[in-house]
């Protein structure tokens, strides 16, 4: 195994290098083949590594590649940590990446920058795997920044479009704010534990005082809010939908945005030290889930709905982390990766069939035109809405029952969010696939066409996974489940009171009822309506005026400060000082230049008189 695991990382990098170095001599088809092939191979290697890990007694393998930094007490190896958590992440990252690469070969066909797209995608997969597999925070940070910059490039992929360029910048800046949190956490941990490897930190958690641990947890939370688009830094993700749809599916739904949750779960032994920190995490997650869900009810753009839905679902994961249900968080992360990638790719297929139209008001009645997209999308919709037996039901139920055990108000918020989730997803589904055909104007009266096999095959696979994903962690199968597999990785969490089967069944019933309420409400409202000012509140459509608030609180005061700095500090003080100094030097020079008569004899006289002064001084001193 120690020989295989680095291949998981190296293969996408190899693909990246191959395309970078030979890009000009390869056809688009060749580029797509290489890029998809290396990621698929990487997935195969991951599966083999996973099987080998199952037979490893310690289930914790560190593979040292080389010494990266060694300065004084700071030793950072470039090493890979293969344990249940990282291998689970790697499995679904490589798997979904392979599917989305395949999808992209058809979706991006004929694009001008086809090669560049796959270049970025491969680099992204490499960075993501670095983030996941690193055995220390510094290497994770490298991957963290790597996925950030790939996200920036891919969001601004159509950089000749003003909105795409600024959306990329927005994503980058929001992520920067979060990165500060990760850096702060690293600094704090290094100062107090003198190590940055995960296992080193976990074995010396006793060195962290509760106050320091809380600070670390809050810093990590800041990092997670940036990368995983949580309040207060969630606002970049909807704008990131400017990127191509496969990018939205891969980076901004399935993998990168879950990195924040992964980081929190990875650092769970530190989280265990601070109950107030965990409480903050839970509240942030719950509130984000609710806020994003309300916003999603009022969006007109199909991808924006899915984007806010992603924010909302990640909010659930963060909530689960906050209450210590790390297994549930990862379970939801994996199943979310399945159904959200499915939904994004399905919406991509819809957009593709309509020649790029994303406004749901101009869709409708597509069910009969897209015979493969429609049923797969149906699976995704039911899954995210929490209808049994789809994976979303089991994952969300797992999260909510854990929240119920720890915090009743947050559980109530979670259930309301579940109703909203079912509602807005059904609205999306109704507007897109049912109702009258409103797309004729967009397609110039042509019939929409189903997408090619390379695009529908991933849809079918993902639909199957969404359908069966619940098997990973059925509530009654305690012997062999994802949570049990992962549990050695997690830090100590105060055990919750064992829930009786009756309670669990009751909670599951509540979930089902919530989902049905949402579905029913959406059916009644959106069967006939296309637009409704009653149910699409402008306040929600404009994201709770969040950007306006940032504008008013941060941007405008800063602009004002910059203006004042320019007018007063720059022009008066700095320029004044510089010009005053220059002017005084010039004026004194004007005066002193008269001494410089160019007459050698005067200069010589000055020298002689100087010597005279020195001699007189010496005589006076000797006397």
């Amino acid at each position, binding site marked *: 195994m120690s020989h295989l695991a680095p291949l998981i990382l190296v293969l996408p990098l190899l693909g990246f290098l191959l395309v970078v170095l030979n890009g000009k001599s390869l056809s688009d088809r060749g580029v797509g083949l290489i890029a998809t092939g290396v990621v698929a191979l990487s997935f195969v290697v991951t599966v083999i590594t996973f099987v080998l890990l199952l037979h490893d007694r310690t289930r914790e393998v560190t593979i040292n590649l080389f010494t990266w930094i060694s300065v004084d007490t700071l030793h950072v190896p470039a090493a890979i940590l293969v344990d249940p958590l990282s291998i689970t992440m790697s499995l679904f990252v490589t798997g979904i990446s392979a599917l989305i690469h395949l999808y992209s070969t058809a979706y991006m066909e004929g694009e001008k920058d086809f090669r560049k797209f796959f270049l970025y995608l491969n680099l992204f997969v490499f960075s993501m795997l670095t983030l996941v597999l690193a055995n220390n925070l510094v290497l994770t940070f490298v991957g963290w920044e790597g996925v950030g910059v790939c996200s920036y490039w891919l969001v601004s992929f159509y950089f000749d479009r003003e909105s795409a360029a600024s959306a990329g910048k927005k994503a980058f800046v929001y992520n920067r704010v979060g990165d500060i949190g990760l850096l702060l956490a690293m600094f704090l941990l290094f100062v107090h534990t003198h190590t940055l490897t995960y296992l080193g930190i976990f074995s010396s958690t006793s060195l962290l005082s509760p106050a320091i641990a809380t600070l670390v947890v809050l810093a990590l939370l800041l990092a997670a809010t940036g990368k995983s688009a949580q309040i207060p830094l969630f606002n970049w993700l909807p704008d990131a939908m400017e990127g191509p749809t496969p990018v939205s599916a891969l980076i901004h739904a399935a993998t990168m945005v879950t990195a924040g949750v992964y980081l929190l779960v990875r650092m769970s032994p530190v989280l265990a030290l601070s109950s107030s920190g965990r409480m903050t995490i839970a509240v942030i997650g719950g509130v984000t889930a609710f806020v994003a869900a309300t916003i999603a009810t009022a969006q007109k753009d199909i991808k924006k709905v899915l984007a806010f839905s992603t924010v909302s679902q990640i909010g659930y994961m963060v909530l689960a982390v906050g209450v210590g249900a790390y297994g549930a968080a990862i379970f939801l992360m994996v199943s979310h990766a399945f159904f959200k990638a499915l939904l994004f790719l399905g919406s991509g297929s819809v957009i593709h069939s309509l020649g790029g139209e994303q406004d749901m008001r101009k869709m409708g009645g597509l069910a009969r035109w897209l015979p493969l997209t429609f049923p797969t999308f149906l699976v995704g919709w039911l899954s995210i809405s929490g209808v049994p037996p789809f994976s979303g039901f089991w994952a969300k139920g797992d999260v909510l029952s854990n929240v119920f055990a720890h915090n009743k108000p947050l559980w109530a918020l979670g259930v309301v969010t579940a109703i909203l989730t079912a509602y807005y997803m059904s609205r999306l589904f109704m507007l897109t696939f049912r109702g009258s055909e409103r797309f004729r104007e967009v397609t110039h009266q042509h019939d929409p066409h189903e997408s090619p096999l390379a695009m529908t095959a991933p849809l079918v696979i993902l639909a199957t996974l969404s359908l069966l994903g619940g098997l990973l962690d059925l509530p009654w199968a305690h012997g062999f489940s994802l949570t049990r597999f992962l549990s050695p990785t997690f830090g100590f969490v105060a055990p919750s009171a064992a829930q009786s089967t009756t309670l669990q069944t009751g909670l599951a019933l509540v979930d089902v009822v919530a989902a049905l309420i949402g579905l029913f409400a959406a059916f009644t409202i959106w069967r006939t309506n296309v637009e409704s000012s009653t149910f699409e509140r402008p306040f929600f459509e404009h994201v709770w005026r969040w950007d306006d608030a940032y504008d008013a609180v941060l941007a405008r005061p800063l602009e004002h400060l910059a203006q004042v700095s320019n007018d007063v500090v720059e022009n008066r003080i700095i320029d004044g000082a510089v010009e005053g100094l220059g002017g005084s030097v010039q004026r004194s020079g004007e005066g002193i230049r008269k001494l410089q*008569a*160019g*007459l*050698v*004899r005067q200069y*010589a006289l000055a020298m002689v008189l100087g010597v005279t002064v020195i001699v007189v001084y010496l005589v006076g001193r000797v006397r």
Partner: protein
Amino acid sequence: MSVPASWYLVLAAVLFGIGAFGVLTRRSALIMFMCIELMLNAVNLTFVTFARTMSDIGGQTTVFFIMVVAAAEVTVGLGIVVAVFRRRASTSVDELSELQG
């Protein structure tokens, strides 16, 4: 016993003073050069005097080198005087004041 060193040193100081006064008051570059030679000789005289007083040959060696350097200096200096004279038709240093402020 020969005359004391201080007599020669006073003589050298006076010679140096005369040379310095000449440099400061004469305008001809040629005369200034001669005055500089006077000053150099004054210094040479002190070196030789100290060499005798201190029984140290180093003083004389220094004078030897000073003479060599003085010879080189005069050669180049007079070359410059000639070159300047060709351009200015004058050896007065007061007229060479282009570098005034």
